[in-house]
């Protein structure tokens, strides 16, 4: 059976004067209808780049240099721009990190909603407005009629993110890519937005790719996780399995670093020593080896393959396979 979205050996490079820099290397995953996937990792792991690569909207000088992105069986990674526009914002919507910066400050919410519908449907303004109202109600915006004629600066951060979710719902997309949708928000608002996203994905049967560094958020919302490190997926599997029994030392480190659970008040949080390597000096062998607590000689010379451990789990680690 073909998947709704299948990313196969995706490779993204940045063209620099000194030569091409590989940002994403051999990333593969699948997403089915109504499925929720978490892309997890520290800053610089390549999560967002993966997200933008899917809708072919990489900032220059980034470009897709290899692999395939199959959406409903069709490769969209090499599609021309005008064809891609029929998918981008229509079949696949994106939610950005900072709702303060995502809406255009000089147009009303109504204008920004209606234009999205008009870009994808032969539709009258009145009809578009009706749909916009309906979607605003879905994300629990009070008195939506009034809100349509307001500007983004008249809303709070949480409200703006709801509006952006409403915009992404306008065309009833098959997939929503949410790039750190709650990072810029208060903790209490974070939970609300996450609940809303989960609820909408379930009721509308939309696929969700949730890009975040927050394992706690991912574990609440998604069914499966792919953990990224230095442009590669290093562990993937069902959310429950990974959170309860992380196999890769990096994933284990991330989970140990979460506050709560075994920690007592006053005790220091765990951390993974060192930093994510920059793209220009990724270490030989396993990219994680300088920070790894269980490494061996082979880790410093040979890249571990992402292998199935037989329990629907993929791990890229010499020591754990």
């Amino acid at each position: 059976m073909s998947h709704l979205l299948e990313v196969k050996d995706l490779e993204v490079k940045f063209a620099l004067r000194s030569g091409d820099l590989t940002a994403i290397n051999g990333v593969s995953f699948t997403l089915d209808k109504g499925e929720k996937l978490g892309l997890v990792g520290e800053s610089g792991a390549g999560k967002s780049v993966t997200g933008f690569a899917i809708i072919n909207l990489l900032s220059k000088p980034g470009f897709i240099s290899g692999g395939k992105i199959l959406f409903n069986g069709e490769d969209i990674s090499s599609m021309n721009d005008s064809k891609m526009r029929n998918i981008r914002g229509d079949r696949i919507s994106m939610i950005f990190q900072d709702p303060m910066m995502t809406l255009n400050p000089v147009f009303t919410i109504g204008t920004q909603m209606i234009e999205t519908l008009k870009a994808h449907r032969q539709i009258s303004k009145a009809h578009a407005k009706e749909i916009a109202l309906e979607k605003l109600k879905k994300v629990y915006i009070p008195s939506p009629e009034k809100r349509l004629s307001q500007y983004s600066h008249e809303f709070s951060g949480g409200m703006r993110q709801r509006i952006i979710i409403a915009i992404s719902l306008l065309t009833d997309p098959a997939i929503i890519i949410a790039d750190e949708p709650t990072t810029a928000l208060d903790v209490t608002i974070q939970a609300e937005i996450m609940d809303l996203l989960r609820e909408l994905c379930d009721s509308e049967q939309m696929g969700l790719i949730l890009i975040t560094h927050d394992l706690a958020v991912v574990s609440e919302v998604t069914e499966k996780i792919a953990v990224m490190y230095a442009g590669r997926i290093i562990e993937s599997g069902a959310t429950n399995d990974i959170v309860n029994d992380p196999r890769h030392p990096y994933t284990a480190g991330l989970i140990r670093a979460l506050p709560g659970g075994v920690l007592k008040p006053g005790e220091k949080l765990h951390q993974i020593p060192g930093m994510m390597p920059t793209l220009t000096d990724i270490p030989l062998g396993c990219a994680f080896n300088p920070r790894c607590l269980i490494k061996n000689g082979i880790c410093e010379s040979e890249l571990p393959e992402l292998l199935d451990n037989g329990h629907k789990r993929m791990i890229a680690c010499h020591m754990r396979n």
Partner: protein
Amino acid sequence: MFAFIIRRIAQAIFVMLVISLIGFAIKNKIGDPVRDMVGERVTPQERAKIRQKLGLNDPFITQYIRFVDHAVHGDLGLSFFYKKPALDVIVEKAPATMEMVIGAGLLIILISLPLGIYTSLKPRTFFSRFVMGFSTLGVSVPVFLTAIMLIYIFGVQLHWLPSYGRGKTVDVFGNGWWMSGFFTADGLKHLILPCISLASIELPLFIRLIRSEMMEVLETDYIKYAWAKGLSPMRIWLVHAFKNTLLPVITVFGVQIGIMFAFTILTETVFQWQGMGYMFLEAVERSDTSLLIAYLVVVGSVFVIVNTVVDIIYGFINPTIRIAGR
């Protein structure tokens, strides 16, 4: 919005008072109106009498209030050379200058907008590099040199365009006030070279300003989001990015229109254009103080009015300003 407009107008009035104060102080200190009026032959006693009669011995502040009072009623003093009210002289000359400034302003808008947008969207093309290089050259060449070069090429060598005067004008309102060159082919021909010269100083600035503002806007998240929504490139560039680009540009345009009025002095001199700038230079040569002060006040008020109007337009375009004005 109403409160915002009222506040802007109040500010404008305040600025006008300051301009008039400076103007009056200059008038008060430079030149002797009694000498201007009576010449050399009158005795000192008679001069003192005239001074007393004209109120020139009153305290500064009393004289200033009288000056403002007169100015509000449209009386900015007499031009001793023209033997009529200074304001009348200026009003007569104003249309010529206005037409040049409007023409130059239109040129700037029509050329800088498309070029600014194009160079921001395609900064690496040969044409963009050419425009940017040429605009650097444009800023650094002084306006009188541009004007003389234009006259030499198009007037003297090619004989395509007239190089001085306003050409054939028509009376717009039928009362002899606004003699316009806008409505005759000859008048328009005469406008071309002066307008290009006047525009040449501001044009490169605007191309660069629009380009850099637009490039900045194109990098913002909301433009990236507009792409992610699947909008067409034209809508993203010309609606989403352009409106945000326009905000700072409008403010600068208001200031620059005022500065262009000042630059007409040079342009009008080179082209023998019978406008306010030309009149100003003549007035300086004749030490016609009243006329100089009247010029200062009139140009000051044009500056203030243009900027107030621009601010109000800005308030309509930028929604966040309206909130602040409530």
